[in-house]
């Protein structure tokens, strides 16, 4: 392509720096949000996997146990009796370094003698001779530990310094005997919160006498029979899993969360695409004269098309690069929010720093450029159709777009119908559920121009006669330039509809959870008994505490729960073991009609009840039997109830303590509910109980638990809200850019208004009138769209993601807020264009055409 041709049109671009900047902002923000989510999510999960590798090294498999841990004799048996060489015992748990920091550290106890064969990550970083010195000292000197140089620095510890670690309520002094030097960022991450000790030391610190957390296994590919060999001696509460499948199941667990987050990122990109589309259309339409002249002197359509696409490509690259830089910065912020949320609802992960991989950057680049080019195709085609002879006037262009709007209206109906159909006929797929929301939003967006035209006509009909000629202008201008205003309104509508949809969903969810909590929190006070449930003395202490509670004069009765894991179908399943009383039984909300004998059967027979998410994920219905692994082999338990539970999205089983004790060993309690006699001073009772419990046990009233749970609920939505604001910010930029384009295009018209005596202030008021109306229109149309989105979120996406049902609670405040948001955003976006136009000298405005 000739460089003169390039220059002819590029000069034009430089005269519209605002539009260029805004288009770049649109691309950049869209890309930034998408990749920041990707980066933060991946970093959180990778950190988790890396931490695993830190001590598992080359291990291919791992023997893990539920609560109670593994008997260390299993290890000896495997090694001595079965002659399996490449295995290593591990005792590990989180500890507190109370003197130095709030952070918790992971303490890993290893067997220094065998450890070397495992080549764990931490060893690879060290010089070989150094490692063996460390290992020998760990073994020979009791209560010694290794940590990374960075940790030591952070904690102000030097070699041979002592420090106190605390696990449960045990305290122990350890001595730093060696500092590990990680040689890259990943291993630095992994080692950042790690203490390595000899296994005996770890068992002592953690109170795991004679117990192991896991046994690492390096499986020789040529000897697969070893797996079977191990399987034979495995106790009922232990499982042999491959390390790959473990990290896979972790990803599986967070999949729904991850998909939902990524969808929010894509939403931002979609809104960003409207912005790009708008800008490029503006830049093309404004150049219709230039393009016409170029065509007249012999430039082909193909050349014109290439020219426009070339420009878009340039914008896309700049925008995407900025977006990636921005995304990395944003990812840093999101990382914290995301790992907090994963911590709160899934599993424990340590906070980490952001890890950026070329693949993710590549994805960002592709998305940014792809989205831009897609958005720019329509205006690029339009450009090729500009006639070399006649230059279309603005109103001719508009009448062309009216035809388009009619077509868009029809397409939108198809999209909305298709979206609804997809929502309800896509099985259990979360992605398709979310895709249906995108279809719906896009459908509503395409319908926006029609809705706008209709509203403006209605406004005129209703208020026209009272308004005077001047004030008829705002609605008229919106209709007259619908190809611009329509896009701005659509972008704003999408953002506000998404906001309304999410707010209604979160509100409904909040209400549902609140009601569930209120219904299920039946006791007056709750004692929680956290900590590793592996140690015999803890179990004993639990029982003693419960007896003491029962003897208190003001206590009418108790209930108890134990949260543990049982193996079903070769995986661990969470189980709540209940000791219920008449009151606590009322706390269960069943999702079906319940017979009178349910509780009787729950106590007497081999039965379980399951939570709604569990039933959803495992396709369980009443009457079905679940095989649970016991010491005597697999035992069938009949499902007799499905109940509401919002405490986790994977779901769990529940059985009576009576049932549990019959097949599994005692593991103490996780919580005890205390029911006071009528007329008891609860505060006094709480104080009394507090004196009975240890430091890490706690006594909380039902109110306090309710409050804490609701706070946790809000916390899990911080990330959602943050992301929502980002897409709103992009929509705002879109409206701003459209308004700038609009005001530029009607400079001449505003000049005439000024010439015939309209003051700058009146002009400003007119433009605000127009933008305010645009905002209101977007807000109004976002109400039905937002309700549909909420509906699909509640009954399709969230149900599929987490397996629980919730009721739809309509909250009019959400609607008012949405309206206000749209209105205020539009007004704000109008400030600068309005001021700029009011300040434009009429003489100059009249020179334009």
């Amino acid at each position, binding site marked *: 392509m000739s460089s003169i041709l390039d220059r002819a049109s590029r000069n034009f671009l430089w005269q519209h720096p605002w539009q260029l900047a805004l288009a770049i902002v649109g691309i950049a923000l869209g890309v930034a949000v998408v990749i920041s989510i990707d980066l933060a999510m991946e970093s959180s999960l990778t950190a988790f996997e890396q931490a695993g590798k830190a001590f598992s090294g080359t291990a291919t498999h791992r023997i893990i146990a539920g609560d109670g841990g593994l008997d260390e004799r299993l290890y000896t048996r495997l090694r001595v009796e079965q002659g399996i060489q490449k295995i290593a015992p591990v005792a590990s748990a989180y500890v507190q370094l109370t003197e130095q920091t709030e952070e918790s550290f992971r303490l890993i106890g290893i067997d220094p003698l065998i450890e070397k064969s495992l080549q764990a990550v931490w060893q690879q970083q060290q010089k070989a001779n150094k490692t063996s010195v460390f290992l020998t000292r760990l073994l020979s000197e009791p209560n010694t530990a290794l940590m990374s140089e960075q940790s030591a620095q952070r904690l102000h510890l030097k070699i041979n310094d002592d420090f106190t670690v605390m696990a449960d309520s045990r305290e122990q002094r350890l001595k730093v005997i060696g500092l590990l030097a990680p040689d890259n960022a990943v291993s630095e991450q992994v080692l950042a919160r790690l203490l390595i000790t000899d296994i005996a030391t770890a068992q002592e610190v953690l109170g795991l006498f004679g117990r192991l957390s896991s046994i690492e296994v390096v499986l020789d590919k040529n000897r697969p029979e070893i797996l079977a060999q191990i399987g034979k001696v495995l106790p009922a509460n232990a499982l042999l899993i491959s390390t790959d499948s473990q990290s896979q199941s972790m990803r599986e667990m967070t999949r729904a969360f991850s998909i939902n987050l990524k969808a929010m990122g894509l939403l931002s990109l979609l809104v960003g695409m409207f912005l790009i589309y708008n800008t490029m259309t503006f830049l093309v339409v404004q150049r219709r004269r230039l393009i016409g002249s170029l065509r007249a002197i012999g430039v082909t359509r193909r050349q014109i098309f290439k020219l426009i696409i070339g420009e878009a490509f340039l914008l896309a690259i700049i925008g995407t690069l900025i977006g990636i830089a921005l995304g990395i910065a944003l990812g840093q912020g999101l990382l914290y929010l995301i790992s907090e949320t994963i911590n709160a609802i899934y599993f424990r992960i340590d906070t980490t720093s952001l890890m950026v991989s070329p693949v993710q950057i590549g994805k960002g680049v592709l998305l940014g450029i792809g989205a831009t080019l897609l958005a720019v195709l329509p205006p690029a085609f339009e450009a090729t159709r500009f006639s070399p002879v006649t230059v279309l006037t603005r109103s001719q262009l508009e009448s062309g777009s009216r035809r388009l709007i009619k077509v868009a209206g029809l397409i939108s109906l198809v999209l909305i119908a298709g979206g609804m159909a997809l929502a309800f006929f896509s099985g259990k797929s979360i992605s398709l559920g979310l895709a249906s929301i995108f279809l719906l939003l896009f459908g509503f967006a395409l319908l926006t121009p029609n809705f706008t035209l209709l509203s403006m006509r209605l406004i005129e009909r209703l208020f026209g006669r009272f308004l005077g000629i001047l004030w008829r*202008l705002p609605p008229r201008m919106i*209709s007259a330039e619908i190809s611009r205003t329509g896009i701005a309104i659509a972008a704003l509508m999408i953002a506000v509809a998404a906001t309304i949809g999410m707010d209604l969903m979160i509100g409904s969810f909040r209400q549902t959870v609140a009601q569930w909590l209120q219904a299920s929190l039946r006791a007056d006070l709750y004692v929680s008994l956290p900590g590793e449930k592996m140690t015999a003395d803890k179990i004993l202490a639990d029982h003693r505490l419960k007896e003491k509670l029962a003897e208190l004069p003001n206590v009418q009765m108790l209930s108890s729960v134990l949260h543990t894991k049982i193996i079903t179908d070769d995986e661990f399943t969470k189980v709540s073991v209940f000791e219920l009383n008449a009151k606590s039984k009322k706390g269960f909300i069943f999702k079906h009609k319940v017979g009178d004998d349910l509780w009787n059967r729950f106590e007497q027979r081999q039965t379980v009840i399951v939570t709604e998410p569990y039933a959803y994920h495992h396709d369980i219905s009443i009457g079905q039997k679940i095989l649970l692994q016991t010491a005597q082999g697999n035992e069938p338990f009949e499902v007799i109830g499905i109940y509401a539970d919002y405490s986790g999205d994977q779901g769990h089983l529940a059985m009576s303590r009576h049932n549990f004790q019959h097949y599994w060993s005692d593991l103490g309690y996780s919580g005890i509910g205390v029911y006071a006699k009528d007329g008891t001073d609860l505060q006094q009772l709480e104080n009394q109980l507090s004196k009975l419990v240890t430091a890490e046990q706690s006594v909380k009233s039902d109110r306090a638990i309710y409050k804490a749970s609701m706070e946790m609920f809000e916390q899990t939505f911080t990330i959602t809200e943050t992301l929502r604001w980002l897409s709103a910010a992009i929509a705002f930029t879109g409206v701003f850019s459209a308004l700038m384009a609009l005001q530029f295009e009607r400079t001449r*018209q505003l000049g005439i208004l000024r010439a015939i005596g309209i003051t700058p202030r009146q002009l400003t008021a007119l433009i605000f009138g127009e933008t305010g109306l645009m905002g209101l229109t977007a807000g109004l149309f976002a109400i039905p769209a937002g309700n549909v989105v909420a509906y699909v979120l509640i009954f399709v996406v969230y149900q599929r993601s987490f397996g629980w049902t919730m009721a739809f609670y309509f909250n009019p405040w959400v609607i008012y807020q949405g309206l206000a948001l749209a209105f205020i955003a539009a007004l704000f976006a109008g400030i600068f264009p309005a001021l700029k136009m009011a300040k434009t000298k*009429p003489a100059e405005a009249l020179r334009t055409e």
Partner: protein
Amino acid sequence: MTTEAAITIQQLSKSYQESGRQHEIFSKLDMQVRRGEFIVLFGRSGSGKSTFLNLVSGIDPPDRGKVIINGINLTGLTEHERTLFRRHHIGFVFQSYNLIPTLTVAENLLLPLELIKRITVKDKDKVAGLLARLNFADRLDSYPDRLSGGEQQRVAIARALIHDPDVILADEPTGNLDLDTGKQVLELLDTLVKKAGKTMIMATHSQEVIGMADRIFSIHNRSLVSR
């Protein structure tokens, strides 16, 4: 200054700053226009005709000098005051795109009225009457883009007169029209303005106007030359 003078221009200078260079359009123009006079302004393209009209109407402030209309010195007024002054005292006809595209023909005519007073039924009748005289009786509710260029100019002339201003400024009102239509528009302008006794300054290239004008000037070398 005679009492007859509708427009007095004294020592008017205007220059533009363009890429750092001062570009002088006029310096020290003087001119007196009597009430009811029809002044025609000739001049090469770029000689400053539009600029001159903008200075007279107060759309553009001069660098130095005075523009006095009906005894009021526009250059002593603020931007806001000049805008209000235009509302009441000046009617405009530009070369093209004179009308507000989103208002109907009738509304375009009512707008200048609405800016100075409350619109009454009588005003609406007045607009309808004026348009009927121009043969637009059936197009009151048409939007400007449905009209031909000549028709638009005729409506623009009606708009310039509707609120009874003292001065009409016309900047190449026939510039975009063919010869015949141009002639018709000029004749219309002439009759309407003369009949109403308005003062008018018209910038044009059209020679047809020579017979109608009271005085003819042209801008030459940054000053006004009487012809």
